[in-house]
């Protein structure tokens, strides 16, 4: 029953947000964050199984769980995906940031054990740098930055992104190419100099 209440609440908040109520987003955000975070962790901690962690699947699952399907128009779904992508980004960046400060364990090194200790913060710092670059991009070109967010963090395909942003698929492809090239340039330059 609580689920239904929550579903109802989120569906309602989505509708309000779509209608321009910004404070609805403030309420929506932590609810979706918690759900996505929980789902992501659950995906990860499933031992083995060889699955791949699909962000789309993750967000879809969150969507099914959080939104009352019967009373939602498609636009709400698009909004949900958009906000979920943003939230996935936030979740990962939060973790990356926390991780960057975490102490690293030592231990005898019979067989090198430090790979993970080095790889994980590696991903973390990559993500942090990407996040920073994406922020700079958003200042110049908010739409292109959003395309990257939806695709990379949200796991949406171009068609879905086109739907969320109300542009053609071709535009999404072009935006993606330009944004990705620019981000690549930013990241490789900051790594090299």
């Amino acid at each position, binding site marked *: 029953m609580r689920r239904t209440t929550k579903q109802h609440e989120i569906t309602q908040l989505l509708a309000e947000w779509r209608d321009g109520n910004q404070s609805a987003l403030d309420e929506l955000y932590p609810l979706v964050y918690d759900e996505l*975070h929980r789902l992501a962790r659950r995906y990860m901690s499933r031992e083995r199984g060889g699955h791949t962690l699909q*962000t789309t699947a993750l967000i879809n699952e969150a969507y099914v769980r959080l939104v009352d399907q019967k009373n939602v128009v498609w636009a709400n779904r698009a909004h949900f995906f958009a906000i979920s992508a943003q939230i996935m980004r936030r979740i990962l960046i939060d973790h990356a940031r926390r991780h960057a400060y975490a102490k690293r364990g030592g231990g005898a090194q019979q067989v090198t054990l430090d*790979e993970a200790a080095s790889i994980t913060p590696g991903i973390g710092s990559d993500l942090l740098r990407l996040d920073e670059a994406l922020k700079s991009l958003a200042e110049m070109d908010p739409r292109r930055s959003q395309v990257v967010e939806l695709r*990379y963090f949200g796991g949406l395909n171009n068609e879905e992104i086109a739907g969320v942003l109300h542009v053609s698929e071709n535009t999404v492809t072009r935006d993606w190419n*330009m944004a*990705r090239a620019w981000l690549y340039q930013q990241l490789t330059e900051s790594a090299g100099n």
Partner: protein
Amino acid sequence: MSPERWQQVSRIFRSAISLEDEARKVFVAEQCGEDESLRSAVEKLIDSHHRADEEDFIGGRAAEDGAALLIVENDEPDAPRFTTGQQFGSYIILDRLGIGGMGEVYLARDSRLGRTVALKVLAADVSADKRRMKRFRQEAKVASSLNQPNILTIFEFGEADGLTFLATEYIDGDTLRDYLRGRRAKLTEILDITIQILAALDAAHDARIVHRDIKPENVMVRRRDRVVKVLDFGLAKVTEKRMHGHIDRDSQHETATAAFKTAPGMLMGTINYMSPEQAQARDVDERTDIWSTGVILYEMLTGVMPFTGPTTSHTLVQIIEKEPLPFNKTLTGQVPDELQRIVRKAMAKSLDERYQTAKDMLIDLRHLKRQLEGTVEGSSERDVGTKKKRVLLFAIAAMVVFTIGLFAFSIWRASPAPSTVSTNAPAAPVAVPERVLTYWITVQKFRDGKYQKPFTVAGEINFEARDEIRLNVRSPQNGHLYVLNEGPREGTNTPEFVIFFPSPTANEGSSLLTAGQEVQIPEQTWLRFDAQAGVERLWLVFTEQAVPEFESVKQFANTQTRGLITDAAQSKSIQDFLTSHSNTKPEFEKSDTLTTLKANGRILLYPVRLEHH
């Protein structure tokens, strides 16, 4: 970039990326007109676009790339999974050796074979992480395909009780990092360790495997006998055979991707061993491992890493642009100049100037080691003389180097001018119009599928196909040495010449030998006889003054053409020189192991005939 500029770049970029190379350049140039900075911005972005495409930059999903982040903090790394005596698959756990992000390492007994192993048991999140699993599987696959005493043996990669594990040879010892901590290793020990690392790399490279992550943490020293083991082939890469002018697209791609994905992670202290090409995410081959070995060698000798900085970026700049502190500026004891040369050559930023194979570096180090142990052939008296002269030579070189503020110098340009050296070198025997040169040949024969121990001969013998030889030369005099191979004429009147000495990799590129100095030709590799029978001639030219005809061609003696003189006019002038001076036949004296040539005048010219059947 201003939003207007951004729009402008974006508009041109959008249309340009769908065009082919040439058309694209034209289009961009057209669109940008006089605006050079716009053109450059667009071109750069297009280049990034292609590279991002090739590397599949952010092509996956963030949640997958960052999956490990979501889970790691939840682990309780300190609680051992197994207790002593517990059974895991066919292994009995004896002790826990360590713990890290990848999982735990146990000392265990394989109950089937009764042997003790190191058992790396992967953490659940690692098993679930495709990329790390790929790396892990790769490590197992690559390392188990290599069977060399200096490479950690992998016994088994498998699963038990739903956990993935890797069973390897157990080494009771320390990583080189720990081994060196707080102590200064003796020179012979340093050479020993480096030689063993190189032996491991040589085997890996033979199997076309590049390790790509050679660092002290990946080298173990066994306590009981100080045998060195190279581990962690997790980043290793199987390469295409390296060829001149050939770029291994695949490895280039992989490396650049890896640079994005793992380079920042190397912050944890491993970035310091990266080669310049790795630091720039360029294509990487065997020579990257040689660089890293050079860095380790430098560090063992001086106690400090050659390239460090307060941040990753600083370190990368150091690697790419800066020369390490010269040995005489570090708190190091005496480092033999030959060893300094070896280190410099291993850490040459230019791939062409670096050792080309691990074997070459290995041979140089072995030779040096024998020399230091005083077992090198020849009288010890001569060695002492040589050493003194070399020390002085180095002192001069060091001054030159110090003045220009560089540690290593580019081979052709900065080698000390011959005149400087000869006037400062110990006095040569009074200049008599006579030239004396001694040579002998080192031969290794191919038998039972491998090369036998090399032996030396005084001169010409009949060689067989696959025999490998080296020519060794020394003189009691100072002088300029040129060694040329005259190839078959193949119907034309102009023979083909290949200049073997000087070469960019021998004698710092100089033709000048000092009295008593021995050179080996080729310096790093062997001359191998092919299956075709015939006669080859090696011209030995030893002169008091530099010979302009030869000095002018030494720039051709690079790795691109392997010393082959392709310019017809050059060949002609060499031929003329040889013809005009070959009437002065030197006398020769043969002992069992040496041939000594003596010629009147200031030029000695002698063709060594190499017949093979």
